């Protein structure tokens, strides 16, 4: 699995989940991957909970309460990096 594939495997489902389940958008996720979801008002605390549940189910990771912080959850990029830290991605 190449780095590019690994990147698509994680960022893309996260973008799609946010667009479909949190923004109810038919236009996909139109923000950059590093956009602050909290500062931009893209998600609220319910959205954070739903993202935690999504990451746990989709990527089979266990999210500890202490890990639910802006540096892990505040952008698509940060969530993808968090998932990669929690899982093994073959180069």
């Amino acid at each position, binding site marked *: 699995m190449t780095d590019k594939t690994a990147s698509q495997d994680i960022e893309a489902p996260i973008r799609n989940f946010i667009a479909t389940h949190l923004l109810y958008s038919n236009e996909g996720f139109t923000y950059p991957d590093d956009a602050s979801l*909290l500062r931009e*008002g893209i998600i*609220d*605390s*319910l959205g*954070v*909970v*739903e993202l*935690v*549940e999504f990451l746990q189910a989709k990527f089979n990771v266990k999210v500890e*309460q*202490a890990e*639910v*912080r*802006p*540096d892990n*959850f505040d952008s698509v990029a940060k969530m993808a990096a968090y998932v990669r830290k929690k899982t093994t991605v073959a180069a």
Partner: protein
Amino acid sequence: MQFTKNSLNLDAAQETERIVKFLQTNMRQTMRRGAVVGISGGIDSAVVLALAVKAFGPQRVVAIMMPDKDSDSLSEKLARELAAKYGVEPIMENITGALEGYNCYQRRDEAVKRVVPEFDAAKGYKSKIVLPPDLLDGGTLNVFSVTVVRPDGSELNKPLPARDMLQIVAASNLKQRTRMSTLYYHAECRQFAVIGTANKNEHAQGFFVKYGDGGVDIQPIAHLFKTQIYQLAKHLGVPEGIQTRPPTTDTYSAPQSQEEFFYRLPFEQMDLMWLALESGVSADEAAKVVGLEPVKVQRAYDDITRKQRTTDFLRLLPPMLEAPKTSI
């Protein structure tokens, strides 16, 4: 003006007069003949009752106590002491029956049991939902967990899935909405106004229920920080037991502080940082005054800002369209 530890101090006598005039003017404008105040045994409703009596006299103020089966018995004791202090005869309206009619407890406990299968209210299990305590140290986000207190006093805490969290909160909100209906019954019997008891922390950060405790006719203390409410309480002679009681939600079956349910910070610390945020004081500068590291102040700033923004909808009137163009 410089930001200092004393920046929240207000002239309590002057502020009292300002609020009294505000109440009196509004009553005249709306042709309400008096005030109905829900008294909980807490500091906010105590201050509001005192202000209402100052504005209208005890004969034109009605004080309603509205406990349910989850309420702390201390609440009623303190509420009665408060009412006696200001010469108002309190009315007791226990809302347990109304809540049972709404299946409030059954709906709430059903969601708790999905998360904690051993939970059984009939066997004396109690519950509450809480936020993580490490806002400043850990910077964690506002994600609820459920704490179950077993009959033997031991506790179990588990993460709360979205669906269950929403159901627990929605069921619990029936309490505040039932209280609103009760207050309006008494108000409308007399053409009185329902006086809100929300402080600034509650109103601006969205710690209230839409059309529940947020369903009122006037908000006389929603511009004041909690810290300032205590200053007014002292000036108005609110009973000592109420002044020293730690703020509680008195909502869930297990005792729950407002700090663990919503604010995640003690008021004394939060209010000063919030004032700094509003006044444009940087986290670095505020940190020197409050005695915290700048990164912790920034976490408090971010949390307050997020709570305000995500609860804007609670404070808005229902939007409506302008009338369509006509030929006139």
